[in-house]
């Protein structure tokens, strides 16, 4: 299962990434909504 995290704060993204990856998610990140889309 893949999850995309969109947030402009790198720390929030990092925190969520760690939490999700620990549960087996493949995580992708975007720093802005436009990039996420």
């Amino acid at each position, binding site marked *: *299962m893949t*999850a995309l995290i*969109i*947030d402009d704060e790198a720390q*929030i993204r990092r925190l*969520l990434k760690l*939490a*999700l990856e620990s*549960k087996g998610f493949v995580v992708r990140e975007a720093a*802005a*909504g*436009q990039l*996420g*889309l």
Partner: protein
Amino acid sequence: MDGLQVLKRLREWSEVPVLILSVRDQEAVKVSALEAGADDYVTKPFGTAELLARLHAILRRKASTDEPEIVIGPLTLDLLHHTALLDGQLVKLTPTEFALLKLLARHAGKIVTQKQIVREVWPGSNTDASLALRVHVNHLRSKLGGAVSVKNEPGIGYRLEAGLQPGL
């Protein structure tokens, strides 16, 4: 672009599960996000366990309703790639037309009320979308020809039917 705008843009073409994580905890903000198609809304600061549990809950719900393809007579809707094929030929649809057709196709043969259509195709819209709906229905009709027809139930809504004969 704020989160709500991203969500609205995304929902023009995708049903992918979305969970909003925000510091804004006013009820109105949550309501507009959910109305715009968010599957859940969690406010910061949040507990990781709760967040993961909510993600899993969303995924359980989605998994049971996801059908990659809807087939109605000669019409095939590929929900994964957002394409419509009529007798094997690609039909070019705008994102709004596709959303409308998808909704009608999911309930093929049954009436979908105007209210329901407006809520799902134009989520979060406050303006009267009934005129826009009529216009999009007419576009769909001309693109689909007679093989699949969008029947109007005056004052109630619309119903998608496979035509009896192609071209009729």
